């Protein structure tokens, strides 16, 4: 059977449908960790960068990428890890930032703290802890609606 290989753009679209295992509101592409997609002959190479070096989701993410691409009929998949340049929250997509806030997680800001409460939009905020439920988040609280919320750390 000879079929034409799916285009690289098509593969990016497929990967944009794979949710982050810990923050399923955004995709792996939104997260900015897919750095490259390229065909080498009939083998597809996907280059992935870790968010935090100890992020326990890394192996699940690799598995999810493989599963999604196999479901779309890609048979030969090579996953490459790239460390440099290191991942930065600047790589979060605009679409991802909007989705994060809607999900209740304040997106990263260059100032180092959330811009507003993702629940009530108040700007009266307090930091509860520099670390949160996953390595990429910190805990904050809204001083108006008093709801605690996650803030996606800016690195």
């Amino acid at each position, binding site marked *: 059977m000879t079929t034409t290989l799916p285009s690289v753009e098509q593969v990016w679209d497929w990967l944009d449908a794979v949710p982050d295992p810990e923050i399923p509101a955004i995709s792996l592409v939104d997260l900015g960790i897919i750095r490259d997609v390229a065909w080498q002959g009939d083998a597809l190479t996907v280059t992935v960068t*870790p968010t*935090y*070096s*100890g*992020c*326990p989701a890394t192996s699940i993410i690799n598995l999810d990428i493989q599963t999604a691409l196999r479901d779309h009929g890609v048979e030969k998949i090579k996953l490459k890890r790239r*460390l*440099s*340049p*290191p*991942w930065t929250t600047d790589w979060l997509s605009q679409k991802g930032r909007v989705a994060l806030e809607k999900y209740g997680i304040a997106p990263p800001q260059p100032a180092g703290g959330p811009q507003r409460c993702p629940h009530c939009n108040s700007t009266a905020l307090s930091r*509860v*802890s*520099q*670390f*949160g*439920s996953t*390595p990429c988040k910190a*805990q904050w609280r809204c001083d108006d609606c008093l709801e605690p919320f996650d803030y996606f*750390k800016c*690195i």
Partner: protein
Amino acid sequence: MTAPKIKPDEALFQFLLRLGDNTLILGHRVSEWCGHGPVLEEDIALANTALDLIGQTQLWLGLAGEVEGKGRTADSLAYLRDTHEFRNLLMAERPNGDFGQTLMRQFLYDAWSSLMLTRLSQSSNPRIAEIAAKALKEVTYHLERSADLCIRLADGTEESHTRMQAALDDLWPYTGEMFIGDAADETLAADGIAPNPADLHDDWRAIVNRLATEGTLSIPDTPFAHQGGKSGRHTEHLGFILAQMQWLQRTNPGAIW
């Protein structure tokens, strides 16, 4: 003093073991707090810090295994070496003590680590440079937290101040080892792979001085430095850490899930 000669590959392997064993042993120590932190937020913060350190271990020991070229992986280096084969600083294996002692150890290490990684991110070895650049982002965040908390506790109540001063006094003799070089360090410094350990001292001391000033602590006036960790001569504490960390792989070799 003329240091004994060491082959460049062996020097590099030893250096990578030192980096990876520091993060592994300190990461394990910090992880002992999981479920025991004074408040939930601190418990989570300590566990996250430990996680970052273990992640960095995978990168450093993974590269060490590649450099050695005998098929050892990060896992086999972590789980199948005995105490005399570990190369971590003695400070990393110090028992946790109270929360203040754990934080003080973290601060003293973070300050050193941030300087070391800054220099390593410019290493002539590109593999080392990319791991260092990655780890530096995490360690910068750790240092921000450990420095902030150490200052707040040191400049807090009489009780917390007393404990933080005791922590600094207790750990101080373990800091000197970070700045004492040997033949491996000299070889790597000559090749532009890593800095001479002594070159990091003044910047590190400046960070510690800031803590002392803002936290109203006095820095111990003793030049004595415990040493031996970098060459495999450890305190009795390391054996207990390894017994806990390695028992599963030792009793069930190759076990996976």
